[in-house]
């Protein structure tokens, strides 16, 4: 995969020959891709292809990893998760990770600010009005869609400019999926860089600049948004839909 990230400017995130393991199980077999500042790129693929594992490896959460992950030119491969977060990378997990013992407001305020430029609470409430109304509720008492909004909202406060979103639309009603799509486009306009893992191809197509197809722990193809229409069959073959 040599053409990943083809374009002008130095990449904000560069992943090269990323190998990863869960215990003894080798799950990533040389992931390569790049993301430039301000881009939204997706990792697409079937279940078990290695998309989520790639995000976990970037955040340092995967058990063991080798290869190279650079963020703004700085190597991350040997850093623990807390140091990677402090480099300006924020992660929104697939299971959302809302804390049951914390209120909505406490969940929102939990991640510490790691840099200037994070969204203010007022701006977050503009994006997600439900969170303001329900700020005193227990985090896990929210609906699935509200929990997803909270999971995204809390990483926007931190000042991180690279967001890793793992299946943010999974299991949500179409109207909520549309709202999350609007949010991602708004974040892109505000200059955030986003790596999005998605199974919902229609949703991914509506927000991303480029699509990386992951299969058996490797990036096997990259399709720019403008070439999507001509390559629908190819994508559908990859995704098995």
């Amino acid at each position: 995969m040599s053409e990943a990230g083809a374009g002008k400017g130095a990449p904000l995130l560069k992943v090269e020959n990323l190998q990863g393991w869960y215990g003894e199980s080798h799950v990533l077999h040389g992931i390569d891709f790049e993301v430039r500042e301000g881009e939204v790129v997706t990792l697409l693929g079937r279940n078990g292809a290695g998309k989520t594992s790639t995000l976990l490896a970037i955040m340092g959460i995967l058990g063991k990893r080798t290869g190279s992950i650079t963020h703004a030119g700085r190597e991350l491969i040997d850093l623990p998760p807390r140091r990677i977060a402090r480099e300006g990378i924020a992660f929104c997990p697939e299971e959302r990770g809302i804390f049951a013992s914390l209120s909505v407001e406490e969940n929102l305020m939990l991640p510490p600010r790691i840099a200037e430029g994070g969204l203010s609470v007022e701006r977050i409430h503009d994006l997600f009005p439900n969170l303001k109304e329900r700020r005193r509720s227990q985090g896990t008492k929210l609906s699935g869609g509200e929990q997803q909004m909270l999971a995204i909202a809390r990483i926007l406060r931190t000042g991180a400019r690279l967001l890793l979103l793992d299946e943010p639309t999974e299991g949500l009603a179409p109207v909520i999926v549309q709202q999350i799509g609007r949010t991602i486009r708004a974040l892109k306009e505000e200059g955030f860089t986003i790596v999005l893992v998605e199974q919902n191809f229609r949703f991914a197509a509506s927000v991303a600049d480029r699509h990386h197809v992951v299969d058996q722990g490797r990036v096997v193809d990259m399709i720019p948004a403008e070439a999507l229409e001509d390559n629908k069959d190819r994508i559908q073959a990859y995704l098995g839909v």
Partner: protein
Amino acid sequence: MFELLGITPQVLMGQLLLGLINGSFYAVLSLGLAVIFGLLNIINFTHGAQYMLGAFVAWMLGAYLGVGYWWALLAAPIVVGASGLVLERLALSKLYHLDHLYGLLLTFGVALILQGIFRDAYGISGQPYQIPDLLAGGHNLGFMFLPNYRAWVVVASVIVCFATWFAIEKTRLGAYLRAATENPTLVGAFGINVPRMIMLTYAFGVGLAGFAGVLAAPIYSVNPNMGADLIIVVFAVVVIGGMGSILGAIVTGYGLGLVEGLTRVFYPEASSVVIFVIMAIVLMLKPEGLFGRSA
């Protein structure tokens, strides 16, 4: 004078006060255990020995350095907390990925070693520790005599329990602790130093045991077995309140102290087992404890 079932108010209030004092120690000790279990998932069997260590540090500060009660009340928990910090870094931190049983065995072994060292050095007869002058004497309340020091123990424990509860339930730091209890990996991925937080939490939890030890020193003789006698009851309190529940540890600690006191009035033969009977009933009806969350 009012009597209930032939029990005079003096006897009733005296036993209730005794129950409240015992409850104060149960509450502070079970609070420390709950904090530690909640975040570290370690059943800290060293807790009784750390309580004893607090009392001994206070006594040694006085006997060898002439340090009085009030400075000892500040210094001893810090010393005990620092010893916990070393224990966590050198031993407990190596066990987090293993079954609970390993932590339990390690802390049980450390407790035996600590008790053995102090038994060897100071014997089992116990060392006297003077009540500070400021708290000597007492007040006649009409229906009972209230010793000042015992009233102080209750007040001090309530302050410490409330402050700890407030810090954990109402502050940003407490939110980090509660979140790390649920999902330490994700909290780490937010940029929070979870290993350091775990280390300091353990030190704080055992510092609470040290604090309780200093409070106990003037009431009970300072002896190597003082923690071993108490810790089993405190574990029962934690189980009844709900493992890891902060509010459960506090409320159950005071409540069971009072229940024990009342039992001593009405059916003295059962007073030493009443807490364990309640524990058995709670485990049968609500295994997660009165304040615990079901799995």
